[in-house]
């Protein structure tokens, strides 16, 4: 493919799938500045990799891989003070969809709970909520299907506990 074609195809694909990148930035960066840095880093890495992308896998699967790999292993967050524990660090914006207050509050609670998961669990929840099948999740994460199902059951239970504790104002250690 010629460079201008490659370029325009790339931009079109990114625009189509930009929600994946935004979600990754939201889950893995805790401040607005870090989110912007991570967004830039992901785009740069995706472009570098795209020039060698052969289309063996779905573009979305490949994009998840690059974005998650960049976020968890190739990007250094600014050091947080150990005493800072901000549940609102991840706050969804639903202004464009106009949901009710209850839905927004519930979603905020979910994001706050997800924020307490480890990096791998965050990725699994994102893939799951984005509607990916276990096969697709396996392709992205490299965790066998059976182990994924077990992990997801545990994560669901963990989130249930975390949101329950949040509702009662208990902060799990």
């Amino acid at each position: 493919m010629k460079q201008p074609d490659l370029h325009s195809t790339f931009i079109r694909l990114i625009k189509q799938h930009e929600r994946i990148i935004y979600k990754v930035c939201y889950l893995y960066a805790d401040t607005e500045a870090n989110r912007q840095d991570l967004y830039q880093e992901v785009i740069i890495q995706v472009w570098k990799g795209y020039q060698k992308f052969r289309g063996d896998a779905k573009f979305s699967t490949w994009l998840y891989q690059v974005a998650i790999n960049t976020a968890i292993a190739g990007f250094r967050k600014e050091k947080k003070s150990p005493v800072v524990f901000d549940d609102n660090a991840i706050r969804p914006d639903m202004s464009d969809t106009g949901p009710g207050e209850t839905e927004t509050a519930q979603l905020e609670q979910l994001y706050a709970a997800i924020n307490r998961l480890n990096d791998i669990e965050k990725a699994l929840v994102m893939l799951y909520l984005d509607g990916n099948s276990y096969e697709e999740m396996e392709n992205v994460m490299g965790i066998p299907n059976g182990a994924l199902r077990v992990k997801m059951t545990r994560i669901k239970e963990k989130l249930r506990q975390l949101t329950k504790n949040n509702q009662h104002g208990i902060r799990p250690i």
Partner: protein
Amino acid sequence: MELDQFRDMWAKSATQPSAINYNITELIYRDAKGPLAMLEKKFKATLYIFPFVMILFSGTFISNGVNQSVITWLLFSILFIEFLFALFNYITVKQIQQPTGNVKDNLLKRAFLLQQRNHNYLHLYVGLYVLMAALLELSVYFDFDTSHNWWGHIAPLLRATIIIVFLIAQYIVKRHSQKKMYGQYIDKLNELIGQME
């Protein structure tokens, strides 16, 4: 709260960071700023030093050919090995930076390459210092270079002790410096791999 109930809401939620309004066309031509990209730049800069070393040594090699002092050969060999190692580092860090492949394999690859690199670094430098010590001993024994005679006047047992202490100290210092530079990152990678089990 059940996770499955949130799929629709999650799909609708817009998580676009408010201030992000980048021109992707412009973005893709920027340099990466991640810690590994910084490391790549550092190793690349080291590669550019070697041509200057060659220029520095060319005068003595042109005038004296291969009849150089042991020290000159040793210095040149060390700098040449440093250059080869910088090249190896540069290639390794480029490989580590590849963000493609599934997450688990990518983490395993990064951890393996970095640990292997640190391992090689330690062995290479300890090997170089052993070579230096051996050359110094040979130089004294065969009287290659009179400037090393002072070393020959020291008792053999004391010389051996000095060499061993020096080698151990170098090993500890190098290992500590590697741990300080890459230890945290390797620990993070291993922790992530552990989270996948």
